[in-house]
C-alpha cells in the first residue's frame, strides 16, 4: 500500500462519514433550518473529501480540474439553494426550533 492509497482511503472514508452524518442530521434534527445545516456538511465536506481522495490516486491534470470544478459547482449551488430554502421557510412562518 503506497502513501497515496492510504491517504486516498482515509479521505474516501472521511467523505463517506460526512455524508452519513448529513443524512443522520437530516433524519434526526428537529426543524428545517437545522436539517439544512446538516445537509451542507454532506455537500461541502463529504463531497470535498471524496474528490480529494479520488484526486490523490489518479493525478491526471484533466481529472483533477474536473473534480475541482464539480466540487466548486456543488459548493456554490448548494449554498445558494440552502439560503433560498431557508428564506422560503422564514417567509412561510416556520420559526426555528428552540430548546423547550
Amino acid at each position: 500500500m503506497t502513501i497515496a492509497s492510504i491517504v486516498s482511503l482515509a479521505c474516501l472514508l472521511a467523505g463517506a462519514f460526512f455524508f452519513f452524518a448529513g443524512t443522520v442530521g437530516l433524519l434526526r434534527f428537529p426543524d428545517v433550518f437545522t436539517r439544512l445545516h446538516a445537509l451542507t456538511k454532506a455537500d461541502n465536506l463529504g463531497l470535498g473529501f471524496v474528490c480529494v481522495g479520488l484526486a490523490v490516486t489518479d493525478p491526471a491534470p484533466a481529472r483533477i480540474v474536473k473534480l475541482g470544478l464539480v466540487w466548486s459547482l456543488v459548493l456554490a449551488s448548494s449554498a445558494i439553494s440552502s439560503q433560498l430554502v431557508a428564506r422560503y421557510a422564514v417567509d412561510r412562518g416556520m420559526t426555528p426550533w428552540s430548546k423547550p
Partner: protein
Amino acid sequence: MHDLRTAIAIFLLANVLLGLTRVVRGPTIADRILVAQLFGTTAVAVLLLLGAGEPASGLDDVALVFSLFASVTVISFVRNAERLGGSPR
C-alpha cells in the same frame, strides 16, 4: 481500490434511500424540497466514484451535469412560490 469505491458507492446509495424517508415524513414542504439537494450531491459523489477506474467512460461528465443542475430543481420551487398565506405544509 475498485472494491472500496464500489462499497462506498453502495453506502452512499443507501444514504439516499434513507433520506427518502425524510421526504415522506415532512412535515413541511421545505423539508421535502431540501432532500432533493441531497440527491444531487450524492449522485455526483457516486458517479465520480464509479467513474474513477475508467477515464474514458464519461461518468465524470454525467457527474458534471448533475453538479450543474441539482440546485436548479430546488430553486425553481422556491423562486416560483407565491405568497399564498396560510399555514405551511
